[in-house]
């Protein structure tokens, strides 16, 4: 019962690697001035950030205002990681939980 599941997970990993590698070949080069990110998003943020967000710090403007949704995700990731670590550590405190004595 164990072997097919393990083989399945290996196959899944290989398929994921293939998909990600194929997708990564289509990326624009880092710092390419003609890539969509450099011609489209960056100039708009640089020109409008102060007026739109009132923040003189461009990093804060993007992190907390334009991309606030991403930061919400990061915060939830931190909370979830902390809660998971807490559950495991507290469960490990109880005797016999992992079959020990």
């Amino acid at each position: 019962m164990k072997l097919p599941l393990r083989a399945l997970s290996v196959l899944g990993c290989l398929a994921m690697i293939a998909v990600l590698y194929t997708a990564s070949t289509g990326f624009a080069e880092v710092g390419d001035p003609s890539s969509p990110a450099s011609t489209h998003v960056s100039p708009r943020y640089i020109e409008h950030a102060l007026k739109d967000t009132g923040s003189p710090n461009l990093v804060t403007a993007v992190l907390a205002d334009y991309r606030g949704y991403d930061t919400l995700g990061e915060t939830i990731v931190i909370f979830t990681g902390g809660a998971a670590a807490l559950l495991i550590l507290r469960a490990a405190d109880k005797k016999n939980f992992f079959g020990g004595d």
Partner: protein
Amino acid sequence: MNRPFGTIILKTFCRYITPFILLYGIYVLIHGEFSPGGGFQAGAVLAFAVILGRLVQGDGARVNMSGNLGILTAAGGGLIFAAVGLMSIPFGGHLFNYGVYPLNMPADEMHPLGILGIEVGVTLCVMGVIIAIFDALTRKDELL
């Protein structure tokens, strides 16, 4: 940490340094909009103030968060963040568009307020998680 291990030197140092650590954490939080800093770093600094007191002074530390307060603070921080972001939808804006709150000030002045709100949420979340993990690592005998 159930047993404090502070000597007179450590206790005195801890008593004098803790207010400055708390003040610096709040400075990093509030000034994060203009300079490097922000919620994540401020949360780590504030959590360190609590952990220092816990290490040196034991459970009776002056600046302390005991029991399940750490993880509850973390959850509250996440809720503050989500609430500040979602509150713009009922007032007719997009998600995280702080300019539509029904406050009596221009829209471009409400954005810093919204940014500060979500930074407070991030700070509470990070601080609570760090303290909760420290509690779980050091308190072996305490029940849930």
